């Protein structure tokens, strides 16, 4: 393997329009181009759910608490109605061996009928729209991906830059922390942090209950689940980026233009912002796009383990619910969530590969 070519002062990227070139290359690679559009669509859908038009609180017959918990999707039809594009003859017959779906009695008295969009992907055990569950699941998935990434990228970048730029004892300590954190398998650390957070939230909640009514308002349980998941993921996933950034900064700080900037007496923060940061943004972008896949998938795993999202509509919950439904022949909720995750992750993977190829060919092998 050839050593990467030694970069010289000519390589200072300031003033080079990398963004324009990136867009041009993106346009030339159809798979990556389509992926970018798909990711953008998911983001738009996720953002749209915040609009009042899509806010279906008004249709809810639930309590205030339910609204707060984000149980925003209403009962639109009879329980386990298949997707509207599947003919009713093709709907699976009731399996006599399995108990009838619970909750059927609760909603049997009045069967509200949603519009065609509500019934497009069928309904779940309570007769709620699978379509809207997928749509609102997008919001949770993207929230997790974006906030956990922000947390993890910030920690990783800051520690990586500090270690690489200052070296010495700072570097030694950060390396030790990185080694320590990466020695605990991340799922274990994530679970441990969730465990501790849940216990703390529980104590906080009982404190709040003890407090006189009205003085404090306990945060709804659903939000705290999300908080725990995001915090745990963000705090455990930064080590990879930290290592990459440290390595890159180590080489950048020896380059001529940084040495020159130091010789001219530029102060450290200015060097970091003007010369170091622009040179590691590509690492952050690549890590973000490929890391988002992990976050989306981890939500499903954590939720399945019963430690993820419990009170908000999420793709993980749909798949978790599908554990038994699938055996009953109810496939649409499972399929809808799986396809939603699959398409997003595929697009993110392809986009991440593209970004890695274009922005940093050294990160991949000979291909």
């Amino acid at each position: 393997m050839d050593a990467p070519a030694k970069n010289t002062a000519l390589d200072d990227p300031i003033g080079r329009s990398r963004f324009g070139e990136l867009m041009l290359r993106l346009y030339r690679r159809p798979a990556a181009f389509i992926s970018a559009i798909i990711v953008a669509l998911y983001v738009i859908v996720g953002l749209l759910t915040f609009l009042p038009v899509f806010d279906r609180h008004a249709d809810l017959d639930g309590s205030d608490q339910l609204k707060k918990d984000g149980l925003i999707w209403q009962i639109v039809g009879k329980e386990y109605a298949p997707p509207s594009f599947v003919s009713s003859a093709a709907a699976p017959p009731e399996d006599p061996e399995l108990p009838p779906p619970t909750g059927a009695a609760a909603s049997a008295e009045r069967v509200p009928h949603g519009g065609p969009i509500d019934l497009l992907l069928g309904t779940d055990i309570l007769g709620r729209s699978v379509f809207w569950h997928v749509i609102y699941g997008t919001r949770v998935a993207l929230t997790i991906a974006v906030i956990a990434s922000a947390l993890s990228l910030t920690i990783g970048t800051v520690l990586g830059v500090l270690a690489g730029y200052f070296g010495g004892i700072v570097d030694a300590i950060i390396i030790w922390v990185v080694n320590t954190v990466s020695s605990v398998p991340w799922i274990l650390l994530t679970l441990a942090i969730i465990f501790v957070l849940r216990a703390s939230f529980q104590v906080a909640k009982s404190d709040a209950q003890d407090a006189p009514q009205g003085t404090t308002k306990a945060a709804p349980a659903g939000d705290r689940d999300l908080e725990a998941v995001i915090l745990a993921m963000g705090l455990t996933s930064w080590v990879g980026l930290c290592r990459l950034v440290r390595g890159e900064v180590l080489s950048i700080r020896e380059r001529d233009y940084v040495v020159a900037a130091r010789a001219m007496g530029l102060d450290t923060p200015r060097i970091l912002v003007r010369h170091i940061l622009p040179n590691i943004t590509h690492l952050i972008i690549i890590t973000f796009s490929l890391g988002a896949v992990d976050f989306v998938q981890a939500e499903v795993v954590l939720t399945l383990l019963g430690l993820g999202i419990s009170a908000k509509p999420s793709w993980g919950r749909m798949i978790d619910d599908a554990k038994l439904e699938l055996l009953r022949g109810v496939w649409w909720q499972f399929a809808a969530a799986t396809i939603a995750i699959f398409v997003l992750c595929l697009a993110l993977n392809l986009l991440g590969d593209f970004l890695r190829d274009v922005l940093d060919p050294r990160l991949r092998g000979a291909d």
Partner: protein
Amino acid sequence: MGAYIIRRILWTIPTVLGVMLLTFALFVVALPDPAITALGKHSSPAVRKSYREKYGLDKPAWLDFTALKSGQIRKAFDSRFFRTLTFQFGKSSHYNRPVSELFLAKAPISLAIQGPVFVIELGLQLLIALYISSWRGRWPDFVVTLLSVLGMSIPIVSLYLLGQWLFGARLHWFPIAGWGVGFFNCIQYAALPILVSVFGGMGGGTRFYRTVVLEQLHSDYVRTARSKGVSRHDALLVHVLRNVLIPVLTNTVTALPGLLMGALVLERMFQIPGAGGLLVEAIFNSDSALVMAVTYFLAVVYCLLVLVTDILYTLVDPRVSLY
């Protein structure tokens, strides 16, 4: 080379200490008092005291300073920190049995699933990567690359569910879930989890090894070997494979935590009474002693595995002994 190994072993000590500190910070410093969590806020101090005594929570966290001052060295170090550091875990509050006993009873079941998964997966990944290298740019290469990316994108849980539904519910090839008694019975139950787990984990590794094999295959030393009269097959299996083992080792270390995740998910979905299920249950039961012990123990085991692979490098790559 000896110096390298010794240095590497010495490096492990601060890491293990760090892991201990991290675990301790989480479970002793950050975690709310388990006595309050378990007994409630309004429990009487006397009940809490006996609870703490029962689970060893009455011991000082770091060092018993009063004992240290009076010269009782042994007693001074009888703290929760040093007990955990030396693997003297307490009792599980839920099962009321020693943690180590619980864990050691369950761990073999998890290993019986994840061991075969690891071996089969690695073998298949390497085999496919080596095989398709001679088909570069043609359809088998394309199909494998495509399947790898598809496999990396599909949620692992969905894949497990599909496998359970297809092979268990529809085809009745395997039991859907559960665990048996006795070796052959257990194999029946283990087959499906192993199958879906191998299938689900193939993608990333295959793609990585494909890249690595292709990179090596086009290197100059392969051309040299071929010019000596070495066959394509031998060049692949002798020259390339030996060089590929270096990135394989690296990748294996990073893939190990994935097995742990597999254990957690598989054991829950297939109702296998292994250590993964034990951990998840312990979290539900707020069984802090158990969670902490499992976290610390597995982290230390992982540290040691990393150490072992680092030492294996010296066998695989002669250049390592230089630095």
